[in-house]
């Protein structure tokens, strides 16, 4: 375990640990804004919405190039579909009376259903390469390569810088979007920016570490940080640290011990940090504790 923690368990372990840690650091603060806007599950909706995009891109690339599995075209399809999914959630909220979580649930299940329909259509075509199409873009943390790690480093850098640069604006729309709108802030566009950050995290995360891990990295560290502080700047910083620490220790454990799947172990590490925070953190208890009524003597 010590070897693994000091990055000397081997080349693959070192690459995966560094990549996952950078992703954890970047996903933490993005997750905090999602959480505060009650959109914690938007990442889940976006990642499920990639499936129909992948199927369409596969057919388009087959038609254009004769080869279905072209990585850039499939990525473009996935990213486009995820963006469409996020925009649909935003539109549903703006123009209907559905709540946040309901709109997300509608888009998530509709996107996934469309994707499954597309997959069952594709499997009837006499063409090669459709086997495992639904898993083709989904990465595995253990299989991370240097190019993946570089991509994560680049995107993580952009994410962190954007959050830092627009911190004031993002804070405003997170706590009081109505006031922000009344005060003349471009709320719609800032909303788009926040969702764009999420989208970048999801697409990069999906292809390098997989679906479960990226959703968990966006939610668990943010929730844990929320237990410790009410100040947004500290919350974002803490979420970044928690995300990084869980990714680092989780990946190290998976390198040191056999039969620990890397992505799942990282999620577990984040979960342990959350569970440890629960009894000690000052904000764990509900704001209005249910009163215990003593029966009259």
């Amino acid at each position: 375990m010590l070897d693994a923690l000091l990055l000397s368990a081997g080349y693959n372990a070192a690459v995966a640990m560094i990549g996952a840690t950078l992703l954890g650091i970047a996903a933490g603060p993005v997750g905090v804004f999602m959480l505060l806007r009650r959109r914690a599950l938007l990442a889940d909706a976006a990642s499920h919405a990639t499936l129909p995009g992948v199927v369409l891109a596969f057919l388009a690339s087959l038609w254009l190039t004769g080869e279905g599995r072209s990585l850039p075209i499939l990525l473009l399809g996935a990213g486009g579909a995820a963006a469409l999914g996020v925009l649909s959630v935003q539109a549903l909220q703006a123009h209907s009376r559905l709540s946040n979580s309901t709109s997300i649930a509608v888009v998530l299940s509709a996107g996934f259903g469309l994707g499954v329909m597309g997959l069952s259509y594709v499997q009837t075509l006499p063409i090669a390469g459709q086997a495992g199409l639904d898993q083709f873009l989904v990465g595995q943390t253990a299989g991370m390569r240097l190019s993946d790690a570089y991509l994560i480093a680049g995107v993580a850098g952009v994410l962190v810088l954007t959050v830092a640069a627009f911190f004031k604006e993002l804070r405003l729309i997170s706590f009081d979007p109505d006031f922000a709108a009344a005060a003349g802030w471009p709320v719609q566009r800032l909303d788009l920016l926040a969702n764009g950050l999420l989208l970048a995290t999801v697409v990069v995360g999906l292809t390098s570490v997989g679906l479960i891990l990226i959703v968990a990295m966006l939610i668990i560290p943010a929730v844990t940080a929320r237990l410790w502080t009410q100040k947004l700047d500290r919350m974002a910083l803490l979420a970044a640290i928690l995300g990084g620490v869980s990714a680092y220790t989780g990946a190290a454990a998976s390198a040191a011990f056999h039969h620990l799947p890397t992505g799942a172990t990282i999620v577990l590490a984040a979960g342990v940090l959350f569970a440890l925070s629960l009894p000690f953190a000052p904000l764990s208890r509900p704001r209005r504790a249910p009163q215990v009524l003593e029966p009259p003597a």
Partner: protein
Amino acid sequence: MRLGRAPWLAMILAVFGAFSARAAVPPTVVATIAQIGQPLGVIAGDCARVESLLGEGVDPHLYQPTRADMKRLLAADLVLANGHNLEAGLHRALAALAERGKVLYIAETIGQERLLPWSDHHSDPHVWMDPTLWRDALTVGVARVAALVPACAQAMTARAMAFFAEMDALDAYAKAAIASIPADTRMLVTAHDAFAYFGRRYGIELQGVQGISTESEAGLARIEEMVRLLVDRKVPAVFVETSVSDRLVRALIEGAGAAGHTVRIGGTLYSDAMGAPGSYRGTIIGMLDHNTTSIARALGGQATGFSPQLAKD
């Protein structure tokens, strides 16, 4: 009004005609996978219409039947499936047909003691990877098809003998080809394990990154262990499969490269899916020839190909 003789005659002839035409229509046999349908089609010849349900590049583990598939299955006189839970998505449809005695699971006709374990309830379903086992499974299928058209039984037996003789020759070729690989590097590294029967038959060590299921996720310790194995044994090549993502295998190549040992991709192997229908690799012989020859050549053995068609296609 008197009816002429002609219309009566015509009617009688029509009835007889329909009868004899009906007898001449060959029965329809639907095979789930092409590993069954292709050889059965060759052996049946004109005696039966043999179709394969699953197209090229389809993963039988995950295939979900469409309405059109259900119609084909219901209309078939006989359905030949692999069994041992290979066609998991088709399970309910097949079970319903099996109640009417119309389904034969050919891999399940092979004795348990000759099969390898897979999960708690099933044996390893990839039986076609060993041509000697597959020949026995196909033999049972041929007998069932021949029973549908007794007039054809003799012709089918003759064609079956010829086909199985070719499979035996392929088996001998594969044995020699794999044995020509140096003992140290005689190791087949793939993303998951569909090659257990192949490995047992020809004595090549198997190392799958993900273990037996395509669903499970790999750990870093396993990746590092495999990289060390590749470097220590100086294995020159690893293999990708047509139906499984190649990410993990490419990570191994990068890891070995960082340790100073160059590994390349030895080729794309057919595991669950075969090549395009009508091509050489779309036949059971061609698929096994392709796998064997790719493996032997990439790992430092001698292999010229079982058939000259391998180089042409």
